[in-house]
């Protein structure tokens, strides 16, 4: 214990600091309960209790039954799952090589590559959407260039399921690269050199040494990407097909255009149900890292 000149302890004992720590954490915890936990519970209750015409409430799974028996709702859910899965795979395929290059390259170009990889973070989704339309949309830059070279037009991904995929992947590159890069920071140069020393080539190095060491980071990066993509709205709304549609635009249309708040809330609860699985992956990974 450090003692001041006056003989008083400079740092309070851990026991006396504990209430202050709890007090500091209490405000954000209460805010999370008020703004996140309670709306979730409230939404679930609203979807499970139906108001009867003659008055009073009754427990009902009607909205869930409808969702899981309605072909359109299911195709929207499967499009969302497909988009999320494809985006997650593409993000890994695109971001892992970038992160590996940034981690192990000594070249000056790496700094520019990092800047380029992080750039989408500063571009709002709506700007990205319009840039996408101007470049890959009908009569966009690519079409004009192909036309100038007397080549046939491409089949534009705009308003197809691939439109949101391209946009969402581009939008999620920065966060994924940063998380993977932070994980790769834990792989020491000497661990790599030791593996090369015992005979590991590039693939063995990646498979046996690097990937197992960054598996938590991969899980966290994918969880974050999946959580964002599953409930994305702007990019699927602007770039995606009218039908089927992803859950974000589907919920918005059900709520605003069809005036069916209970159905929209049910869609939100189902979306939340899928997202929480990845949320639990993330929490598990964080807890695993913090276990002494």
């Amino acid at each position, binding site marked *: 214990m450090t003692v001041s000149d006056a003989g008083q302890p400079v740092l309070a004992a851990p026991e006396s600091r504990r209430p202050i720590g709890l007090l500091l954490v209490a405000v954000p915890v209460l805010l999370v309960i008020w703004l996140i936990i309670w709306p979730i519970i409230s939404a679930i209750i609203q979807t499970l209790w139906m108001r009867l015409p003659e008055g009073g409430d009754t427990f009902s799974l009607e909205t869930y039954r409808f969702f899981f028996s309605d072909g359109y709702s299911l195709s929207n859910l499967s499009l969302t799952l497909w988009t999320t899965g494809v985006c997650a795979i593409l993000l890994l395929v695109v971001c892992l090589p970038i992160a590996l290059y940034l981690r192990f390259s000594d070249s000056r170009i790496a700094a520019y590559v990092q800047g380029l990889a992080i750039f989408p973070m500063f571009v709002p989704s709506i700007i990205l959407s319009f840039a996408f339309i101007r470049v890959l949309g009908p009569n966009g830059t690519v079409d004009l260039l192909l036309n100038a070279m007397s080549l046939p037009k491409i089949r534009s991904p705009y308003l197809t399921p691939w439109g949101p995929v391209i946009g969402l992947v581009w939008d999620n590159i920065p966060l994924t690269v940063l998380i993977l890069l932070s994980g790769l920071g834990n792989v*020491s140069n*000497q*661990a790599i*050199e*030791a593996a*090369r020393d015992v*005979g590991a080539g590039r693939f063995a190095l990646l498979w046996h040494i690097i990937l197992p*060491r960054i598996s938590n980071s991969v899980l966290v990066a994918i969880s974050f990407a999946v959580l964002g993509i599953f409930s994305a709205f702007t990019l699927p709304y602007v770039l995606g097909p009218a039908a089927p549609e992803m859950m974000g635009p589907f919920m918005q249309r059900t709520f605003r255009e069809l005036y069916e708040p209970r159905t929209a809330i049910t869609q939100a609860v189902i979306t939340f149900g899928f997202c929480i699985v990845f949320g639990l992956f993330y929490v598990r990974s964080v807890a695993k890292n913090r276990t002494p």
Partner: protein
Amino acid sequence: MSVLKIKDVSKIFASGQVRAVDNFSLEVADGELVCLLGPSGSGKSTLLRMVGGFERPTSGVMTIDGEDITHVPPEKRPTGMVFQSHALWTHMNVFKNLAFGLKLRKVAPDEIKRRVDAVLDLVGLNGYGTRHVAKLSGGQQQRVALARSLVLEPKILLLDEPFASLDQHLRERLREEVRDIQQRLKITTLFVTHGQDEALSMADRIVVMRDGRTEQIDRPEVIYREPQTPFVAGFIGTMNLIEGNVANGMFSKAGYSTPLPVSDGPAILAIRPEALDLAVTGEGSQGKVHRVTDYGTHGLVDLELNDATRIKAMVPHPDLFKAGQTVTLTPKAIAAYRDGVVIHRA
């Protein structure tokens, strides 16, 4: 039979400003343990990394048993390296750390188990195969790192300051063990250290390096007793280096003088503390006692010459001396240097 030959190897880093290793040549005989010793920045680790394949030489040739390995990548070299930070793979247990290299070589599982068990036995870690490496002590981790290299039966073992992160007691014990294992296996070894104790106690030969160049290559006792340059004299052990002038066969410096049969001119006189006799009274050159330290087995007397130059003398009875006393200095063995080379030894 594994002989390592390094011929005229240089390493200039990309900027072109730093010549880390400068025209270095060395031949390490079969089963020999050679220590690369030098201060930080002397190029010893860069040289070792070039032998391991982790740095490419700018010029020169390296061969193992006559085979040119200069541009062979590390994964294809017949060398095994033990790193300063152990560099164990923390997501694997001890067995998997050791078996990894054998699996890459597609060795049969039974043979892998036999070889891993044998090498664990060799480093005194029998039964530790299933232990997680992160839960081992520093000394045990270093043994695993050594075992990981040995299990592949490399032609040349490279040790890069392997004991630097260990405490003094453990370091002393491990260096004896490593030397025993090296001698038992008769494995050609190149060992980098900046600890002279380590080099003197383990090496068959020591290479003292400075600014990427060789200062002296010799057996430990020769390096200690007959250093060829003032740098080696000052770097190995404790040495009093007194810069003065020789006139008419007498070296003198700030009131201290001693016969030195060399031509007139500047010279550096080198005297080991244990080769300097002190007497409180009597004829001879004089110095003043500044501090006396009693180490139990012997004492160390710090002396000041008239111009405040500090020198040390080792004495068997430190209680005979006190701070402030004037004493006579009588060297039993001296060496003298001029222009960086030895000009007299007696």
